[in-house]
């Protein structure tokens, strides 16, 4: 029997009591209708498993105060967007995450993307770089240049950025555990190219908390890792006022299998943790909060995603104003980048991924993103080919220039459903904050394995729902084809590793070994104090110390991290 639309979704039973009129409607209209025309399924839910009713009405919003719940675009609490005119003023930045092979290979791709109309850069590093190993380290075997570009030294960074005007193009770098070292390389490379630190702009991901929670590319234990993050934020505020020193990321949390609510809550709670740590380092909140930025996933369930972005802006505005008493309105803004969901892409019938990506990108735009990456159709198989990357960029351009959705702000604002979902997600987020606060904050919660367990439970439940076919994935558990149509795949051969090793060997011979040694020793001594490490790392980079050498010094001082065992 089809169930009546249910009301349990609410956190507040008082507000969801059926009005007399609604009760009569259900009894006299809906029930007889369902007896004749049953619904397709027993129950309906979002991709994250949030139950969804068949109809939303003003009764779902109860007392709804426009100014308190939404505000106009550009007004507190920014539910409708951070700018007054949103995309009428300026479109989002089309920023395709890119990087593979040698720095020469990746530099060619960056120039290609700029020539195709991309408006910002986003660099993907390979796994050895992400883990703080040089290309010639034994653990780098087989991994050099595979998941991104290989960068072991300032020389590699200069090659990667060659010919790119760093004062006018903004660059985002997906780097976390060794973010401070890679950023030092970027700063020195910018300086050598004649760019002014006060004018360069871009974003360092630098979000170590989500590494422990989800992405798992960590090197050091949480406490010293947080110190590196704080050092880079403090340094950035002083030296590179236009740079975003951190991008607090839910993307990877979602990719690891979380629900939309968990992505929202864990990300914003991570944000709270960073603010507390930087404040403890002595910086007043309004000096750095305007430079904090966020990064969310754009998954398949269009309305759930839009509600998530709207709730994120609202919750962050409340947090900054009420929890941290920030006075500067720019401190209240949740500015974010979005990326379509890699985990939603299927290896089967890969062309279908173009459609998924388009819907996800639309969700991010309807949700008011500041910047967007669209995945390529071949990414369930490999890093994207040039033509696949171009099609992904074209997807954004069609939405921006042809769909008409950019003509006005917050197109879905005022939808009973979207407003209700936004409010439900906001409340679920506050509930998670309470639990994490009770555990002693996010670092403590991570050390206890709390967010990791929550995400694993959600991921396993999702997998089971797919296997039971409660969730349909076109081309995978429905509408399958016996043979996959082969697509062109980018392969990265071992010559990349060989070339990188040769360059490193030559660099090690060429540089001033005594200066390198002195600079590395200075990092080691500074790490044992509470001095800001950025100037020491910059001196290492100038001396052409390698990434692996800098990380090795800190491995000795800080130790390394192993996550608590999975049962």
């Amino acid at each position, binding site marked *: 029997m089809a169930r009546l639309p249910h009301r349990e979704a609410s956190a507040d039973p008082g507000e969801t009591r059926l009005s007399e009129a609604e009760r009569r409607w259900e009894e006299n209209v809906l029930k007889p209708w369902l007896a004749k025309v049953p619904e397709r399924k027993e129950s309906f839910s979002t991709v994250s498993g949030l139950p969804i009713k068949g109809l939303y009405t003003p009764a779902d919003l109860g007392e709804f105060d426009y100014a308190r719940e939404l505000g106009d675009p550009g007004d507190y609490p920014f539910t409708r967007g951070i700018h007054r005119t949103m995309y009428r003023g300026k479109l989002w930045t089309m920023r395709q995450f890119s990087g593979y092979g040698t720095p020469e290979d990746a530099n060619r791709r960056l120039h290609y993307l700029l020539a195709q109309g991309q408006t910002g850069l986003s660099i993907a590093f390979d796994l050895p770089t992400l883990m703080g190993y040089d290309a010639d380290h034994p653990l780098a*075997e087989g991994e050099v240049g595979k998941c991104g570009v290989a960068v072991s030294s300032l020389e590699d960074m200069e090659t990667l950025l060659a010919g790119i005007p760093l004062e006018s193009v903004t660059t985002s770098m997906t780097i976390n555990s060794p973010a401070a070292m890679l950023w030092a390389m970027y700063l020195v490379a910018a300086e050598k190219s004649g760019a002014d630190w006060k004018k360069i702009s871009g974003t360092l991901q630098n979000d170590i908390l989500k590494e422990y929670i989800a992405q798992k590319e960590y090197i050091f234990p949480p406490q010293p890792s947080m110190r590196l993050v704080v050092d880079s934020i403090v340094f950035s505020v002083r030296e590179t006022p236009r740079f975003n020193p951190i991008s607090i990321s839910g993307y990877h949390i979602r990719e690891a299998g979380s629900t939309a609510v968990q992505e929202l809550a864990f990300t914003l709670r991570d944000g709270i943790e960073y603010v507390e740590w930087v404040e403890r380092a002595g910086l007043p909140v309004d000096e750095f909060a305007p430079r904090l930025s966020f990064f969310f996933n754009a998954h398949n369930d269009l309305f759930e995603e839009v509600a998530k972005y709207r709730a994120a802006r609202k919750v962050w505005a409340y947090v900054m104003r009420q929890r941290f008493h920030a006075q500067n309105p720019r401190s209240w803004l949740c500015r974010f980048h979005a990326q379509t969901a890699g985990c939603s892409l299927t290896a089967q019938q890969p062309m279908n991924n173009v459609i998924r990506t388009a819907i996800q990108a639309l969700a991010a735009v309807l949700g008011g993103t500041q910047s967007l990456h669209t995945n390529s159709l071949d990414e369930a198989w*490999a890093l994207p080919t040039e033509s696949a990357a171009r099609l992904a960029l074209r997807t954004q351009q069609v939405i921006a220039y042809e769909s008409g959705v950019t003509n006005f702000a917050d197109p879905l604002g005022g939808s009973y459903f979207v407003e209700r979902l936004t409010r439900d997600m906001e409340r679920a987020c506050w509930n998670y904050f309470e639990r994490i606060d009770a555990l002693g904050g996010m670092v403590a919660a991570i050390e206890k394995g709390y967010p990791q367990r929550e995400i694993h439970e959600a*991921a396993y439940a999702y997998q089971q729902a797919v296997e039971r076919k409660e969730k349909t994935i076109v081309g995978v558990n429905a509408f399958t084809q016996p043979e996959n149509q082969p697509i062109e795949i980018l392969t990265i051969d071992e010559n990349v590793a060989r070339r990188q090793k040769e360059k490193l060997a030559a660099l090690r011979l060429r540089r001033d070994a005594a200066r390198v040694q002195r600079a590395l020793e200075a990092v080691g001594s500074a790490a044992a104090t509470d001095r800001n490490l950025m100037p020491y790392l910059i001196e290492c980079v100038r001396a052409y110390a390698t990434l692996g050498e800098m990380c090795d010094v800190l491995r000795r001082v800080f130790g390394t991290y192993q996550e608590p065992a999975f049962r």
Partner: protein
Amino acid sequence: MDRRIRVLVAKPGLDGHDRGAKIVARALRDAGMEVIYTGLRQTPEQIAAAALQEDVDAVGLSILSGAHNTIVPRICELLRAQDQAEVTVIVGGIIPDEDIPALKRAGVAEVFQPGVSTQEIVDFLRRRISEQTFKS
């Protein structure tokens, strides 16, 4: 057959994407197998040593980083060198079609690509390991 199937689930290489490995580990456990999960970033030597120490019937390797062509054959070689040639090696992750023949020649029993159900992995291991028990 009294003995439960014992499986080592391992994450070789530097890749931290453990969603798949943990889901497979849990699904194999739910299917009644004994599962040892190594955790992240294990070298081929560490994985082979764990396989020997835990006396497993199967080793499941999860790799999403593209390093499989380098890492997997070495693990198979180490297993053979320690007289564990009969251990069933399966691989899951992002493995392009064209890499599969070479992995199978190196000693991999099966490669599970994205979108496979955990039930298919359970069924494969049960079938394969009962056949081996019958042969020996």
